[in-house]
């Protein structure tokens, strides 16, 4: 099992409930905007605390309200690719990429800077500032930063939403490669059925379904 998630969380007027058992590969989390998809990712990453439930990834218990387990965000080793990139504006691309890599223990690292840059096609961008990047370039750097942080799983929050069609195709192909070549469990949030049909092995629907 890659993701075993049973969570409940009340957030304002919304009631977020999810019961998910994913076997591996890329699992999509589908639902209309406002259904709480991003909140689910935040709960798996450890940025938001569920009211109750249990989150297990790859056999490791990250959260279990019944057992009183709540691993701090820093120890969960998620590779979180945010919808809005969130590159650090005061660091060059190279230092953005290495931010998590430097913090990871050497034994946990499974990817190097050169390798990641080649995989993502961003070697020529290493000395640039984030504000000079196009949307597609910034998203690739954000993915690289997440991968270099030595994650055990990836969380992707609509990584294609800010991109135009050609860039979407390019990043989608990249995500397929990550899915097939790295063997990392990926939890992928989207509201686009076509995108999900192409990428996901398994789909969970959040909201009114």
């Amino acid at each position, binding site marked *: 099992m890659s993701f075993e998630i049973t969570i409940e969380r009340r957030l304002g007027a919304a009631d977020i409930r999810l019961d998910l058992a994913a076997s591996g590969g890329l699992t999509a989390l589908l639902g209309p905007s406002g259904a709480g998809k991003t909140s689910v990712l935040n709960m798996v990453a450890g940025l938001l605390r569920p009211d109750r439930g249990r989150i297990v990834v790859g056999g490791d218990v990250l959260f279990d309200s019944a057992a009183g387990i709540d691993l701090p965000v*820093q120890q*969960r080793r998620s590779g979180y690719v945010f919808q809005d990139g*969130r590159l*650090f504006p005061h660091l060059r691309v190279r230092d953005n990429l290495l931010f998590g890599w430097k913090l990871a223990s050497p034994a946990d690292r499974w990817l190097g800077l050169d390798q990641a840059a080649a995989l993502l096609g961003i070697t020529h961008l290493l000395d640039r500032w984030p504000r000079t990047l196009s949307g597609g370039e910034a998203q690739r750097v954000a993915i690289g930063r997440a991968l270099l942080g030595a994650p055990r799983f990836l969380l992707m929050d609509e990584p294609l939403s800010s991109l135009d069609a050609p860039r979407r195709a390019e990043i989608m192909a990249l995500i397929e490669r990550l899915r097939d070549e790295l063997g990392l469990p990926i939890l992928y949030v989207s509201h686009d059925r076509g995108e999900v049909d192409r990428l996901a092995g398994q789909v969970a629907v959040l909201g009114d379904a």
Partner: protein
Amino acid sequence: MILTADELAVVGLSLKVSAVAIGATLPVAFALAWVLARKVFPGRVLLDALVHLPLVLPPVVTGWLLLLAFGANGPVGRWAADWLGLHFMFRWTGAALASAVMALPLMVRAMRLSIEAVDPRLEQAAMTLGASRLRTFTAITLPLATPGVLAGMVLGFARSLGEFGATITFVSNIPGETRTLPLAIYGALQLPGGEAEVTRLAVIAVALSLAALLASEWLVRGREGRGHVL
């Protein structure tokens, strides 16, 4: 224009008083700015008001309150003398203290705005990458808030150079000890035929203030060139 020995002493003292005042206030101002920007706690509004008090109080009242608290028989003054060996009355350290108190609200305001402008989502991103709270603060929050911290320091420094009312009330106008530039100008104005001296000191004051402003502009621009979004 060649400065006389007296004028040099005045300028030197002014710079020393302001530099010490701002240097010593910096950590306090930053801590207050951070707490006010990021923490919600009972008494927050009161703390905010207290920090801003020197901005709205008549400076002579601030000086008098300092006299009560830090005077030889004041509760804080006695404690500082006994435990730290620090004396404020009629000393340049007292002038620095008065400057610091008057500069504090301006410094806290500038720093608080810059801390509030740091996107907490960037800090969250750093934490998902394994950064502890301290590391997130030093690697993300602090550098992003730096332009505001610099601006706050320059504002405080300029305010400190011009400080008059609280200083003269608290530590009087003693040549070589507490006679900073504004106090020297005031002193010269009291003397018959002091206009020429007043003019010279006023020119120095304008030059110093202008230099402080240009220095701040240069500092902030320099950082922006290194990729800062102000």
